[in-house]
């Protein structure tokens, strides 16, 4: 009936507002709403509950489609080399502390590489995390070449038969050409020293980030390669919806979620939980 159709328009607008307010973005929201609209008309649906379920399913589909298992491939090469990259202040160093802790619980021997040689007390900050999480740290003096620290850490890893090397990099806005080039150089050095390295490049995205997060992901994907996303600060009020657009447009899997500032506050990404929290 035409009355039923009118209800759906208002309900669709309310749901559109929820999606926009969670930073899912205009284009992705339009696509989700459009698909939902077609399904409603096709199935002659008329209640908000059915519509909400359709929208949730659509978002889950975007998040889970095409992404091979979140487990990084069991690599025979040792050490596995993980770069952690992203713009300033998003939680890279803290995430490395958490990741090291998670790996150490699995019995892995981890070396952290202090390749942020630029920011005040960045090395000291990583040292605290290394101590807390049971990793060994490789560092050089403040201001030294990040690639030189990387090289040393890969040497050390081979010498000590470490399982994983996690590389902390300086925060960098993707618009800074020379800083992005620095990452490319580090990738080259890693690949020369360890076959297939870096095996994992984790882009850290702050859950409060708006549409610039998609531009960040595109840039880092292009310049340094990105094999997975860590979304941090999801313990706040921000919904982190930008990762839906990132997944939809770039198909980068979301691997980890930061939910606090302590060592244990890192969990594997779960699409169902994420989608439920969008609407809570």
């Amino acid at each position, binding site marked *: 009936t035409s009355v039923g159709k009118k209800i759906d328009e208002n309900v669709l607008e309310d749901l559109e507002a929820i999606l926009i307010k969670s930073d899912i973005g205009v284009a992705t929201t339009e696509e989700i709403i459009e698909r939902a609209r077609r399904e409603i008309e096709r199935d002659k649906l008329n209640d908000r509950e059915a519509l909400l379920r359709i929208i949730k399913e659509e978002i889950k589909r975007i998040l889970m489609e095409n992404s091979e298992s979140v487990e990084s491939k069991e690599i025979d090469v040792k050490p596995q080399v993980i770069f952690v990259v992203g*713009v300033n202040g998003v939680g890279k160093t803290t995430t490395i502390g958490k990741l090291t802790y998670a790996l150490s619980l699995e019995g892995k021997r981890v070396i952290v590489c202090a390749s942020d040689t630029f920011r005040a007390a960045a090395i000291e900050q990583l040292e605290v995390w290394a101590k807390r999480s049971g990793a060994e740290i490789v560092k050089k003096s403040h201001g030294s070449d990040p690639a030189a620290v990387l090289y040393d850490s890969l040497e050390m890893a081979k010498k000590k038969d470490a399982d994983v090397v996690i590389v902390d990099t300086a925060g960098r806005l993707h618009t800074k050409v020379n800083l992005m080039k620095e990452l490319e150089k580090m990738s080259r050095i890693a690949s020369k020293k360890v076959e297939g390295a870096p095996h994992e490049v984790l882009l850290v995205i702050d859950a409060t980030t708006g549409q610039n997060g998609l531009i960040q992901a595109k840039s880092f994907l292009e310049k340094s390669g990105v094999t997975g996303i860590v979304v941090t600060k999801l313990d706040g009020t921000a919904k982190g919806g930008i990762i839906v657009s990132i997944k939809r447009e770039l198909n980068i899997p979301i691997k980890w979620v930061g939910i606090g500032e302590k060592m244990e506050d890192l969990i594997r990404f779960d699409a169902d939980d994420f989608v439920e929290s969008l609407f809570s």
Partner: protein
Amino acid sequence: TLSKGFKNIKNKLQGLEELNERVIDDALQDVKRSLLEADVAFDVVKKFLRNVKEKAMGETVRVKVKHKDKKIKIKPEDMFIKICEDELVNLLGPVDASLKINEYEPTKIMLVGLQGSGKTTTAGKMAKLLMKNGKSVLLVAADVYRPAAIEQLKVIGSQLGVDVVAKEGENPVKICKDAIEVAKEKNIDVVIFDTAGRLAIDEVLMKELEEIKKETNPENIFLVCDAMIGQDAVNMSMAFDKRLDVDGFIMTKLDGDTRGGAILSVKEVTGKPIKFVGIGESLDKFEEFRPEGYASRILG
């Protein structure tokens, strides 16, 4: 300075003799999309569109009446875009980089905000700016939680030749109170409190900020906000403002390519001014906020 969002609107309106409601509504759809893509808060966008429509409708009536049989002087698309830009500059402004100064005692500046927004770096930038204007500064490390936070501020202090008050594991409220005494003893003009990043929903830590405010009575409380923040800018700024009655915002990391719609959002929902902007990592990358520089960036 129009980029593709507004080029679209210009093309749509080009060649029209006049604006009417239908044409305005159509152009407003493009404005809505552009502002949401720029991270302006959803409800702030709605309000902006209403204001612009009202002015645009008013303008068409005025122009029609004034130029009864003559050709309209301003092209409709230019008029519409000017209304949008003027409205945005009007909402963002006026310029206000003022600091409340204490005539008899050290002036206090308290920096607060979410984790990673740039508070510690901004403390250094603020100190450098004040020193450039002949003021002496004391930096206070009130973040006792983050690994090497005190060390970070000490490095900044030594780069500037500024003393840093710090005490590992001490209560931040006490640190700030004691720092004021140090500033009085040493006859220092300005004290800057660098606080730990925190979530606005963290009851314990928000109470800590209220306690620092109550015990030290800072003349200036600035909310340091990352310019790439999205829709959460509304929740965040309202929560901090409600608890602390902030004096203004400092938007950081504007040297990137974020459109910065949060600038409009936080100003609109709290009424508090944007005082300064951070435009780089080094301590000289800091300036007063001037709205005209950001209107076209946000509008697109």
